[in-house]
């Protein structure tokens, strides 16, 4: 038995868990506190759950509005609606909006709750059994040419040259995941380079357990395709967050997190090599998560790339040495962090030009741009981060994090004193 409890109050979540465990000792109750988690993504159908318990209200929220939305989603798991108080009109309305059953949280009735859940689960399992053998189900497991059981396609997120990204609902994970699917592309030696990159990405994220790194759920193969199931971030990436506007203190706080996660990566002997706002996701409004280790490399392997004369990465965020195909170390990633922080603070990239080669040239030769006078006290920090020569930058990620932390503390102290 697997239940999703959309309920803000932890004590009620605990009560539901206790009741359910009386009948189903191995029950899994996944709490969904709406204030912290926000609206349920439009693609989510909770099909991996036997039933969904939905509270009538929470501070500033109306469960009936949610029920209207969820009840309109074809295929959504049955909803057991939990009234705050017994109320015949609300009960009738809930049924009208698609609730499978309605119970009251006031004078909670054990048998009524469990019987409702059991009936909901029974109906859902029957519906799912019918659905699984349908043409629609087969179609929903199709991701391009790949047929991937266990994941229901919600929508295509992005189409890339080496892989496609989909939002999918996982039957095993708690909700939506991002599914990165790549075609099988064997080179002359018979090696599937895309799969090698997937494998590397999976191994890196698995090896470096850090709160600011994306959670990867599964690496798999289906038909002639490799796929990677990873954490979905409904709040989007740092680019989107920047558009909403950021204070200097928030920008510096984000930069501290990035320095810390880069520290963890570097400690494992790995360079990210592609740090940019599009690769930094928001797990919550406060917590960042770094994604995309497809470009990451063991530090010792750098020469292999330069020998081939290849340049990987995004020109706007590349260190001068990376842009010129020179040997890299951890300070290259820290330069990229400096570029990201500059953009967070000012809304603009430090070097802009019409073509990528000019941008690369500017990273090496153009003087470090001056910050707006109101940000002038952060200029020394920026000068160290964006120094042209690696030896003029902070020595490592820990020193960088310390410096940004100190700058943030000073900024806040002066702001409070002003």
């Amino acid at each position, binding site marked *: 038995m697997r239940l999703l409890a959309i309920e803000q109050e932890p004590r009620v979540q605990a*009560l539901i868990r206790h009741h359910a465990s009386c009948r189903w000792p191995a029950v899994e109750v996944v709490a969904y506190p709406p204030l912290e988690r926000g609206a349920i993504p439009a693609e989510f159908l909770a099909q991996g759950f036997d039933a969904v318990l939905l509270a009538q209200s929470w501070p500033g929220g109306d469960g009936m509005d949610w029920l209207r939305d969820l009840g309109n989603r074809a295929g959504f798991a049955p909803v057991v609606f939990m009234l705050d108080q017994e109320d015949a009109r609300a009960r009738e309305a809930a049924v009208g909006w698609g609730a499978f059953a309605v119970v009251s949280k006031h004078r909670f009735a054990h048998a009524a709750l469990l019987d409702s859940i059991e009936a909901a689960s029974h109906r859902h399992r029957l519906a799912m059994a019918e659905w699984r053998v349908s043409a629609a189900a087969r179609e929903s497991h199709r991701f391009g040419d790949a047929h991937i059981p266990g994941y229901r396609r919600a929508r295509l997120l992005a189409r890339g040259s080496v892989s496609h990204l989909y939002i999918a609902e996982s039957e095993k994970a708690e909700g939506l995941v991002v599914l990165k699917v790549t075609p099988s592309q064997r080179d002359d030696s018979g090696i599937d380079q895309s799969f090698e990159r997937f494998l590397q990405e999976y191994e890196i994220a698995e090896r470096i357990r850090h709160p600011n790194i994306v959670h990867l759920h599964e690496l798999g193969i289906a038909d002639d395709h490799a796929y990677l199931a990873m954490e979905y971030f409904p709040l989007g990436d740092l680019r989107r967050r920047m558009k909403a506007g950021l204070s200097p203190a928030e920008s510096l706080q984000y930069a501290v997190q990035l320095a810390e996660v880069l520290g963890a990566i570097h400690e494992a002997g790995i360079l990210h090599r592609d740090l940019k706002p599009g690769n930094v996701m928001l797990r919550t409004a406060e917590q960042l998560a770094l994604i995309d280790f497809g470009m990451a490399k063991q530090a010792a392997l750098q020469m292999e790339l330069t020998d081939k004369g290849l340049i990987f990465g995004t020109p706007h965020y590349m260190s001068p040495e990376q842009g010129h195909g020179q040997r890299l170390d951890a300070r290259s990633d820290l330069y990229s962090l400096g570029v990201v922080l500059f953009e967070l603070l000012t809304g603009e990239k430090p070097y802009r030009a019409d073509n990528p080669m000019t941008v690369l040239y500017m990273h090496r030769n153009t003087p470090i741009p001056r910050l707006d006078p109101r940000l002038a006290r952060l200029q020394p920090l920026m000068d160290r981060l964006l120094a042209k020569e690696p030896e003029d930058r902070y020595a490592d990620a820990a020193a960088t994090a310390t410096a940004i932390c100190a700058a943030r503390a000073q900024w806040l102290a002066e702001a409070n004193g002003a």
Partner: protein
Amino acid sequence: MRAQPGSGGMQRARALLLESLAATIAAPDMNAWPQVLRAAADGHGLVMNWRGLLADAPDTAAVRVAHALEMGPVGMQAWYAAWPTEGAQPPLEFAAAAAGLVAGREPLLVLAAPVDPSGGDSGALIDGESCARMTVAGFDPETELRLGNCEELLASAGDLVNLAGHGASGAVTPQFLIIGLKWHAPAGD
């Protein structure tokens, strides 16, 4: 799933008491109860102390049991009672009263149940969080206890134990089993 802190331990404790009750019901006669309960406790590395007859009325017996658990060592203690059942559900009255007495004492659990059908088909298994669950479920434990609404009150907390169809009738006087468990030492000990 995100496991709740301590929920696994509480599940195991509840399972131990329910298994102990089942073993007692299956025992050939009352004389075998202490032995059966010791074996169940032993299986979890716990000591079981057999305390004999509880001669008090259910609400007073609840005080005696809660005190014994509070003062006693980690492990199981067990009693039996022979409460009259006319128009009453003594194990539920006992359990509802005990729930109030052990409220907030996380390591304490108490099970009270009839061992043969003449004592009814409902028992209860309460713990230190039972009262909190009753409150969250929209019940005021003291009021409901005063009104004698013990069955609904215990059900609201998920603490009712259904024993329909258990055991073989034949006892002249209904027999009730009461098992207390101090699952672990309270924090700070």
